[in-house]
């Protein structure tokens, strides 16, 4: 079974500042890793995913994440945030084989202020 820990429930940041949202996972098998974003009163939207290959993954809206197998982490970063990035961000993991379900973390609320 897999699990995900998002260490920060809320991250306040000023506009144009860099941000990092932390995610650690636990699994006994190889995994796929995902970051989803949820804007108020909307469903989840995929930001980026790591399947294999390069450990640095680039996604939409200027976000990127780095897979670190030794530290079992998949932290999300953006060099300069905008007000419109205010949202809830979820890290998720699924296993490699069979009908693998997506297991989500508890989410990190990113609050961008002027």
């Amino acid at each position, binding site marked *: 079974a897999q699990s995900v820990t998002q260490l920060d429930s809320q991250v306040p940041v000023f506009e144009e500042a860099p941000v990092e949202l932390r995610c650690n996972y636990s699994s006994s098998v190889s995994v*796929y890793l995902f970051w*989803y974003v949820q804007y108020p009163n909307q*469903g*989840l*939207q995929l930001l980026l*995913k790591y399947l294999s290959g390069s450990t640095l993954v680039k996604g939409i809206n200027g976000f990127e994440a780095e897979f670190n197998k030794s530290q079992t982490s998949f932290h999300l970063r953006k060099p300069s945030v905008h007000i419109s990035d205010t949202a809830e961000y979820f890290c998720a993991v699924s296993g490699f084989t069979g009908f*693998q379900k*997506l297991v989500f973390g508890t*989410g990190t609320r990113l609050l961008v202020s002027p």
Partner: protein
Amino acid sequence: EAGVAQSPRYKIIEKRQSVAFWCNPISGHATLYWYQQILGQGPKLLIQFQNNGVVDDSQLPKDRFSAERLKGVDSTLKIQPAKLEDSAVYLCASSLEASGYNEQFFGPGTRLTVL
């Protein structure tokens, strides 16, 4: 391409009443998921369908929750009778296939309040 559709968007009921949610996935997507998202938590998978068969319902409270996906397209999730702790957003998602690497596309959700 049309996204995942859900209705209703909001529902308020009293405890012990019944309620049903509807989901129409993206055309051609074989796999359909229902998630429960309680305030302050991440989504939790309730049930997963592959076409019209159930793949995983290990976290579905089967004494009160039921779901079906007739003809492998639309799906309905029902709660009967509802409890206060069922207050949550119910998200439907779909993907091309059930493999772990497939992107899941989410609908806007149904916010259920049980009084």
